[in-house]
């Protein structure tokens, strides 16, 4: 390999990493947490900590009466059935005023659960992962997409830059000085989890094909009246028929569910929706679960509400199957605990790879420019601290706020779930301000903060819900016990690192009061 090619790759790897590192760390961190979004939801929404759902649920007994009282005049209503990971069912309807209403219900009794007062991981962490919560012109999606393309470039250039390290595979020397140990960790996490990092990034980009390539559908379906709609119908299924404005009835939903499940060789349905309830043209949509397949292949069957006869059956076409399979690998919607934990660990390895890349850049600059004014490096260091330890501390502060805010907390028109999220943003901002003031010492300070926040979150969960780790284990609330266990490990690890950072001191620190 030519010398100049290697140099070009090093340049590319360094600067792309520096520019995209902050976004990539945020995406990787939130993505890693998203692996356990259901479990975090249970932790953050204590009312949904229910015992495992019953094996058979009668929709006729559970939902039909509920719809008759709650969803009067609704243009559609339905139920998201519970799963092992999501023990509550979600009853939803579109109200006559057009608003979409969702209520969590207890699948054992049909009772409505109280408002959670928290967006949970599904409402905050998952959307952060793919859209950064920047909704203006879908800018967040595009930033994540650009960062993902950058990640692929970084992985390829990283293999070229660090190619000699492959001969020293398995090498990790934590006892060496910081730059050496950091580079070892960067290479190790980068190399061992390379297949995962490459695939997860690639599938992430493919997942959002209709955001990044909307014109593809327009082009392929240009003869259709509604190209985008035809594309979605062909790709994801769908069946519509208009209102007849004559009254009609609804036969047994349970019978339709049994029929659908038989057609999917025993796979249970996950989602049932009645369109135009009460109309003679009403129809029922039943969708299959993702829990037992790697792919997000859609199985959809539409029944006539009045007769229970099948109107339309949709199964994903072969081309779309590829996209759905890759999406499935990314989404990990299936039930596979070993893989879920491995995804989580590989995600953490990705976070470590990005963070150590940053630290190595800073250390290299610190030595090269020792004693000279380096305002830019100072800014990069503050950004780095905020985007690594800062976002971790902010996430833990979100959990602490989740347990501290009273159930009816609000500020003006801002409800409890928004307040929680404001705490996240505020702590992140404070972390950045703190890092710009404290320079290198901010690493240690914020690591202490992470340790303190992690233990506080576990303590508050025990105090406010009574489900301290042992009680959660006894009540078989695995999700709560699992989140607590990871929090305790995070706390312990943060304390160990903080103590070590303190012992090591900060020998390379530039004047902290800033000559830059």
């Amino acid at each position: 390999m030519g010398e100049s090619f290697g140099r070009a790759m090093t340049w590319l790897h360094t600067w792309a990493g520096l520019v995209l590192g902050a976004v990539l760390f945020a995406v990787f961190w939130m993505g890693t947490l998203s692996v356990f979004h259901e479990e975090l939801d249970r932790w953050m929404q204590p009312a949904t900590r229910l015992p495992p759902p019953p094996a058979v649920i009668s929709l006729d007994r559970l939902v039909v009466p509920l719809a008759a009282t709650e969803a009067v005049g609704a243009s559609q209503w339905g139920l998201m059935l519970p799963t092992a990971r999501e023990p509550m069912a979600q009853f939803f309807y579109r109200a006559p005023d057009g608003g979409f209403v969702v209520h969590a219900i207890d699948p054992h009794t049909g009772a409505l659960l109280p408002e959670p007062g928290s967006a949970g991981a599904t409402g905050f962490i998952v959307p952060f992962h793919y859209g950064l919560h920047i909704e203006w012109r879908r800018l967040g999606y595009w930033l994540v997409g650009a960062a993902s393309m950058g990640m692929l470039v970084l992985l390829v250039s990283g293999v070229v830059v660090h190619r000699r390290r492959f001969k020293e595979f398995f090498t990790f020397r934590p006892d060496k000085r910081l730059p050496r140990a950091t580079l070892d960790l960067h290479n190790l996490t980068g190399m061992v989890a390379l297949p995962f990092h490459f695939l997860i990034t690639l599938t992430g980009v493919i997942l959002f094909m209709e955001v990044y390539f909307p014109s593809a559908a327009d082009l392929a379906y240009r003869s259709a009246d509604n190209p985008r709609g035809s594309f979605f119908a062909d790709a994801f299924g769908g069946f519509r028929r208009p209102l007849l404005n004559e009254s009609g009835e609804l036969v047994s939903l349970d019978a339709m569910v049994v029929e659908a499940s038989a057609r999917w060789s025993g796979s249970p349905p996950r989602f049932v929706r009645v369109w135009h309830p009460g109309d003679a043209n009403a129809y029922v949509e039943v969708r299959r679960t993702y829990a037992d397949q790697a792919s997000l292949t859609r199985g959809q069957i539409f029944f006539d509400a009045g007769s229970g006869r099948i109107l339309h059956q949709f199964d994903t076409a072969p081309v779309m199957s590829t996209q759905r399979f890759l999406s499935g690998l990314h989404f990990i919607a299936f039930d596979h605990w070993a893989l879920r934990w491995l995804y989580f660990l590989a995600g953490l390895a990705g976070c470590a790879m990005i963070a150590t890349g940053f630290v190595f850049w800073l250390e290299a600059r610190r030595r090269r420019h020792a004693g000279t004014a380096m305002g830019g490096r100072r800014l990069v260091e503050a950004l780095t601290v905020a985007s690594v330890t800062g976002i971790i501390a902010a996430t833990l502060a979100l959990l602490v706020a989740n347990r501290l805010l009273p159930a009816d907390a609000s500020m003006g028109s801002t409800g409890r779930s928004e307040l929680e999220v404001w705490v996240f943003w505020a702590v992140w901002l404070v972390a950045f301000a703190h890092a710009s003031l404290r320079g290198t010492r901010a690493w240690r300070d914020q690591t202490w903060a992470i340790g303190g926040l992690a233990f506080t979150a576990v303590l508050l969960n025990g105090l406010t819900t009574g489900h301290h780790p042992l009680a959660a284990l006894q009540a078989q609330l695995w999700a709560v016990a699992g989140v607590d266990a990871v929090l305790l490990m995070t706390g312990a690890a943060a304390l160990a690192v903080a103590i070590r950072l303190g012992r090591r001191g900060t020998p390379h620190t530039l004047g902290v009061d800033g000559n830059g």
Partner: protein
Amino acid sequence: MVDGMLLAVIVVCAYLGMAMLALSQPPHWRRVAGEPGAPPGCPRRPRRIAVLLLAASLVVALLRDGPVFGSVLWVMVLSAAAAAVAVTLAWQPRTLAQLVRLVDSAHRG
């Protein structure tokens, strides 16, 4: 129960296989053996054992979870195993000394 045991077999085979790959690299061999020199038949012998172990891990993964989940599981377990071996070499290299003896005896036998 059987599922858990099969998972343990997948993980253990992957870990030992990765450890054997590490031992095929002279610096790691020296660190584990605690003496200068290279593994006997270096690097082919430890690598051959490694390939057998990793293949066993793959076969059990495919049997346990089928072709789709099995292969994904195997790739992910390999990553975790490689990281675990690196950590072992960094902090507790002597725990792998038994493997050094195994390669030695395979050489003599």
